[in-house]
Each structure stands twice: as C-alpha cells, then as structure tokens.
C-alpha cells in the first residue's frame, strides 16, 4: 500500500487545496479471522513492535488491537523525556540503543516526531545524591555513553531559572547532564509508527478490547475480543498498565503493580528554559514549543486503574518545583491528567516469554517507557519473529525474578520512589 510521502511539497500542495485532500494516515479494516501475530495494545511499544516486525523481519500478517483508540494510553499522557542515563550495563545498552534511534526517527518514519535533543539536567541536592550521580556518571562513561558532571555555575548557565544560592531550601550542589537526551511530540510517535506499519500491511484495529485467550495444550491459539474471536500463531501483550488484567486471563501473575502517575501543564509563557530539568526531591519539567511548562510527578502511593491522581501530590510537586525554580511561583496551571503505569518490582522492563507458549510480553516500563519505544519494539520484534530473545533484552526476561538477577534501577529511574 504505497502512501504519499509527507514533505514540504505535499504540505504546500495541500495548503493550496485548503487541506481538504489529505488522505487517512492508516486504514481501519475489519479484523481478519486469523493473523500470524496479534499485538495487544496500540501504544508506543505495540506500534513500534508491529513496525519492526514488518520492516526488519518481513512479517506483515500482523494486527495491532486496542480497546480504545490508537495512541490514547500512556504514550499520549507522558512528559516525553528521552534519555539513557541509567545505572546498570543491561539498562544502559537497551536505553541507549533506543536513544540513538530517536535521533533518526522522523526520517525513518517520514513523520515529524519533533525530537528535540535539548539535554537532560539532573540536579544534585545532597551528599547521597552526589554519590549516586557520580556512580551513574562513571557507569555511563565506562559504557561509552555521554554524560557530564556540572558545577552549580554550569547549571546556572544552562538553566538560569534554577536557584543555586547556598541558602536555598534544596541547595544545588551540581548536576549530571546528558546532551543527547531531550523531548519529543508524544502523539507523533504513535501516529508515525502506526502510519509506517500500516503502509507495510499491518492492520490497526481500534475499539477491540481483548477479553480473553484461547489456549489449547498450553499454547495460545488466538484472542477473544469484543469484536469476536481472532486466531493467531503468536500473541504479544503490550498493554502497559493493564498487563496484570490480561495476565490473569491467561492464567499467570507478574511482578507488577499498576499505579497512576500524573502530569500537568501550565499556561504558555515566553521561552525561558531550553533544557529538561529533573530533581530527585522530586519533580521534572521542560518547556514545550508552545511555551507551556510540562511538569512530571512521581507515582501515586497506591494501586490504581483510575487515570486520575490526587491533589496532595500536585501540591507537593508544585512546592518542590517552586523551591528550586522560584520564578515559577506565579505560573497558572491549565490541565492535569494521569496514566495507569505497570511498575515492576525492580522498575525495569519485563520482555520475553510467558508461561503460555506462543505468548510474549513486553511490559513493566512503568514510569519511563516513552524513551524506550524505538529500541523496545526493535528488540521485541526480533523475539517474536525468531522465538529467541534479542541479546539486548535477554537480561530482562520474567525468569530473572526466580533467578534473583534483578536490575534495580530505582535510583537512576529518576528518584528514590519510582519516577520517570
């Protein structure tokens, strides 16, 4: 299915026609009775998995099913921080593969993902934080991944709004900087992958909730959905916060709990911050191209499938941010929202086989799975196509919990609670 390419010329041509002639970005076919691969969840990870299955492995008999609309889950609800400054070698390799892919993603998908590598400044406020930062900085440099240590003055030069005076409530002792990191346009990533996968023959089936599985002799035969039964040789579960619900339907449990995380966005103001600032106290923020400040928070304190966060949390995060960037104090907020996250026990992803034959899972990205969308789909498609984990995802199997080989990224995931 050849699709017209997006370009400056197609933009001009369509502008002259008053934008009446744009064609749909992907088809909306009725489900076929059987697919080689069914992917459950049309979020970032499900869509990138579908794209790389078709592009890298030539498997195009694929459907991506979503219970809502395509890209209506966490992929559209996150604060879009993209970075690879994790602590352990396994994580650095996986996240950095992804970060490298971000730099070429718009061209790869012929869709402007608005990736802006504006640098990630992670503040240090105390001695413990200093040790954590130095350890992470050294681990990254040993792995050949960019990371810099900043003095308070260097922080001030990059982000003048940050209060570095020694008397501050949370004094700034320095920061780490990852220049290749940045932010992107959330929707564009989902839409870009969907459009590119559709062009290769993948079916996007929206409003098609998976309600159960047909499993015979320990092997998955297909999925029960609100649109009827659909057969499949392989089923890949990529439903983020709802993975526990689907695992229960397939008869197994996961080391995962679902919690809500909130974000909020301010009124637009003149450009005054051109880098991402993260702090472990915690809060994170960046200024969007429209001028809004986008605030990231930490997870809510109990299991939840509600997509709504609590007000005390908003108050806490706002107070934190104002104490470090006092210039924000009179900023007015426009919107806040929440997403249901799949937080694993070591806050690292779970990618690989399940106890059901032919069923694979890619979940547990929790607070930080936007950045990993390209790399995760790339590695996971290899697993589905070859029934063999790609080296990059090998350490992240479900079997690591019984083996005790946890990859505990609590500190590098952004704060000492699960965050980002």
């Amino acid at each position, binding site marked *: 299915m050849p699709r017209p390419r997006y370009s400056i010329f197609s933009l001009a041509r369509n502008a002259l026609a008053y934008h009446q002639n744009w064609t749909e970005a992907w088809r909306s076919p009725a489900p076929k009775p059987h697919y080689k691969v069914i992917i459950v969840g049309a979020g970032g990870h499900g869509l990138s998995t579908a794209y790389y299955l078709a592009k890298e492995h030539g498997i195009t008999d694929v459907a991506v099913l979503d219970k809502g609309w395509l890209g209506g889950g966490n992929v559209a609800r996150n604060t879009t921080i993209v970075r690879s400054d994790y602590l352990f070698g396994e994580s650095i390799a996986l996240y950095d593969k992804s970060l490298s892919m971000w730099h070429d993603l718009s061209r790869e998908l012929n869709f402007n993902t608005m990736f802006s590598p504006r640098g990630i400044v992670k503040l240090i406020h105390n001695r413990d934080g200093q040790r954590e930062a130095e350890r992470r900085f050294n681990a990254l440099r040993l792995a050949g991944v960019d990371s810099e240590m900043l003095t308070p003055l260097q922080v001030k030069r990059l982000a003048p709004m940050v209060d570095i005076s020694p008397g501050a409530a949370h004094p700034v002792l320095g920061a780490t900087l990852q220049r290749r990191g940045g932010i992107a346009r959330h929707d564009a990533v989902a839409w870009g992958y969907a459009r590119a996968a559709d062009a290769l023959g993948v079916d996007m089936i929206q409003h098609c909730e998976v309600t159960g599985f047909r499993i015979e002799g320990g092997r998955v035969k297909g999925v029960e959905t609100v649109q009827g039964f659909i057969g499949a040789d392989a089923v890949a579960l990529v439903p983020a916060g709802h993975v526990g619900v689907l695992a229960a339907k397939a008869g197994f*449990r996961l080391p995962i709990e*679902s919690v809500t995380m909130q974000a909020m966005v301010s009124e637009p103001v003149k450009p005054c911050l051109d880098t991402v600032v993260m702090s472990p106290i915690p809060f994170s923020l960046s200024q969007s191209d429209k001028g809004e400040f986008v605030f990231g928070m930490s997870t809510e304190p109990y299991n939840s499938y509600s997509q709504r966060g609590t007000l*005390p949390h908003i108050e806490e995060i706002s107070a934190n941010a104002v104490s470090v960037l006092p210039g924000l104090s009179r900023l007015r907020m426009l919107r806040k929202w929440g997403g249901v996250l799949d937080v694993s026990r070591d806050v690292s992803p779970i990618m690989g086989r399940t106890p059901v034959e032919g069923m694979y899972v890619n979940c547990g990205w929790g607070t930080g799975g936007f950045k990993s969308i390209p790399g995760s789909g790339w590695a996971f498609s290899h697993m589905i196509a070859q029934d063999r984990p790609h080296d990059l995802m090998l350490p992240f199997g479900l079997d690591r919990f019984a083996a005790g080989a946890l990859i505990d990224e609590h500190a590098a995931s952004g704060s000492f609670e699960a965050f980002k």
Partner: protein
Amino acid sequence: MLLIECPFCGPRAEVEFRCSGEGHIARPETPENISDEAWADYVYMRTNPKGLHFERWMHQHGCRRWFCVARDTVTHKIRAIYKLGEAKPALDEPKTEGEGA
C-alpha cells in the same frame, strides 16, 4: 483525597497513611524446602486486580499501627476496613470491566 477510618484513631486524611500493597500474603512456612519459583512467587508476584483489592495500610503519621483495607482500584472506594489477622470480608466484585481506558 480519601478519608480513611483508622481502626484505632478514627477518620483521618489520606496523607497521614501509607499503603503497603497487597495483603494476606503468607510467608512460606519452610522457605528452605521450596523452589526458587515458589519463593519468587511469594516475594515478587502480585495479583494486581482491576477492582476489589485487599491491602495493608499503616497510620504512619498517627498511631503507626497496621490494618487491612478492602478498596476498589478503579473508583478508590473503600469497601471495608478490618484488623490484621482477620479473614478477608466477603464482598462482591464491583462491575468495573470496560471502565476507564
């Protein structure tokens, strides 16, 4: 914000409490005799239901005592509060299927 009835102090605001996740998880009696899988099941695996959830909470900024809460993970409605060691109360599953996104 939730209003939570501490069985020892009475109704207090949510921010005084700490939720410590799924309750009624019994430690295996003889850990030395069970498989790594069974141990991992005890330590790491969770039920994580959408709907009725039986949890342990602590009145952290109050009496600091533990108790049990049966709560709906979609609406956050508290269905029952009872003491540690008591059996799970019999409650019917809420109809949450299809709610939320």
